[in-house]
């Protein structure tokens, strides 16, 4: 791999044009004795990709789960002007959030087609968006999702949320365990999706972040320690080392 300049889609409006689609304010999460999130606040702009970064275990996944009510939380969460912090998960999802979990979590006993129809009974593997983005899945409509390879499962997991129109997508480490070629493909898919739907993306792969993210939010020790443009952060080697414990140069070298 070689370093490349940030490839942001020129058509996407700049973040300042519209108000945020999602606002998280003073979010706290406690698991038993441990206080995982200690007052996290940030906005997800109405366009483009916002990357949520941080070392392992700082609470990135927890933040996403807390937003959709899968983690015990307190604080304020506003989706398009509507407070959702007290709603149950299904209601939040239907209010317009799509969630792609960290570990894929496809339904192993169901076929690929059934996994998709769960979201929308009328759209299975023959849905146009599936054919366009994930041609490999189309032929596997009748295969049980549990027998798919890791990458194929990731495809199902992504395809699942794209069947429905949403205000914002929460995507947790979508390229984990994917072959390099697929990483590029997924990045492209996300970039394309981001043209119409804002994405809050958790990702360890900094080159990918640099390529598709507009803004970044960095978590550490349960709090937001940095907010800013993606390009600026990635360009600043000292800052990346300080915030993420790694230098961009090394990471970029293939």
């Amino acid at each position, binding site marked *: 791999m070689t370093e490349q300049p940030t490839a942001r889609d020129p058509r996407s409006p700049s973040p300042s044009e519209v108000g945020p689609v999602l606002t998280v304010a003073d979010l706290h999460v406690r698991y038993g004795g441990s206080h995982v999130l200690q007052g996290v606040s940030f906005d997800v702009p109405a366009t483009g990709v916002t990357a949520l970064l941080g070392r392992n275990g700082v609470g990135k996944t927890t933040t996403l789960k807390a937003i959709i009510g*899968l983690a015990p939380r307190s604080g304020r969460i506003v989706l398009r002007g509507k407070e959702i912090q007290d709603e149950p998960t299904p209601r939040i999802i239907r209010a317009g959030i799509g969630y792609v979990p960290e570990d894929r979590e496809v339904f192993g006993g169901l076929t690929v087609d059934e996994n998709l129809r769960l979201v929308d009974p009328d759209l299975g593997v023959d849905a146009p968006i599936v054919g366009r983005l994930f041609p490999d899945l189309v032929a596997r409509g009748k295969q049980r999702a549990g027998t798919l390879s890791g990458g194929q499962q990731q495809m199902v997991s992504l395809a699942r949320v794209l069947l429905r129109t949403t205000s914002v997508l929460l995507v947790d480490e979508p390229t984990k365990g994917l072959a390099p070629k697929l990483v590029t493909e997924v990045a492209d898919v996300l970039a394309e999706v981001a043209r119409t739907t804002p994405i809050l993306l958790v990702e360890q792969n900094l080159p990918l972040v640099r390529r598709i993210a507009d803004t970044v939010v960095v978590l550490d020790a349960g709090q937001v320690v940095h907010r800013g443009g993606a390009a600026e952060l990635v360009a600043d080697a000292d800052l990346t080392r300080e915030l993420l414990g790694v230098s961009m140069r090394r990471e970029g070298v293939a």
Partner: protein
Amino acid sequence: MTDFVLIMVTGVGLGALYFLAASGLSIIYGLMGVLNFAHGAFMMAGSYAGWLTMGALPGSWSVATRLLVAVVVALAVGAVIGLLVEVVLIRPLYRHHIQQVLVTVGLALASVAAAQGIWGADPRTVEKPEWMGGTTLVLGARLPNDRFLFILVAVAVFLGLLALLHYTRLGLIIRAGVENRTMVEALGINVHRTFTVVFALGGAAAALAGLLYSQYAGTVSPAQGGSLLIYAFIVVVIGGMGSLVGTAVAAVAVGLVQQLANFYAASGVGDLSVVLLLALVLLLRPTSLKGAPA
């Protein structure tokens, strides 16, 4: 030949009863991973609901009419009990499978004891429509009419459940929810409601089984549900833990084996035939029965 026909038909009739008893157990286990020990209590509730209803309706109505009303009442009672048990007892313990089993064990003990306290331990006779008590002559065998009814109802329940699971959205959600509740919710589906529906369904199936079994036995008693439950368990295990088709096949097999062994085998074998069948299936095809980890 005559004897054989009689044994076969009553065997299948018995299998139908076993299937009815096992179906509710099987869907609740297969879909929610909850081994419902209170299923026997659900069956007992159905049989007592039926008995009380038939007693409360005006005696001028025909027995068959009263029985029909009793079936409706029992189904409703079973569904409501299943619903309450799910909402009050099972749901808060979600993810703790062993605890769920334990709660149902406690419930089974307490409710049978309660019934014993209220109505006494002795069996009470139930009224049976004239036609069901009669027989039909086929190939020289006097076939009890009620067995035909049981078989008919069992087939209807079987097909209904199968269709529900595979051809409805509810079925799809149920099958997905079995695997990963959280993710179903994260897709915007209210899975709680679905599981409550499953339990209500299981409760209704149990109540129906209980009521029909009391018709078959001619009496209701607190212990009845429990004795049928053992067979339901065995049927569910032989059927492959939660597979509806497997349950149906196993139920018929168990009914037939029991009747044939009781008639043809030496006294003593008939008794243990069902357990022997279980051990045999286990030794020959252990993988088909690999249960979900408790």
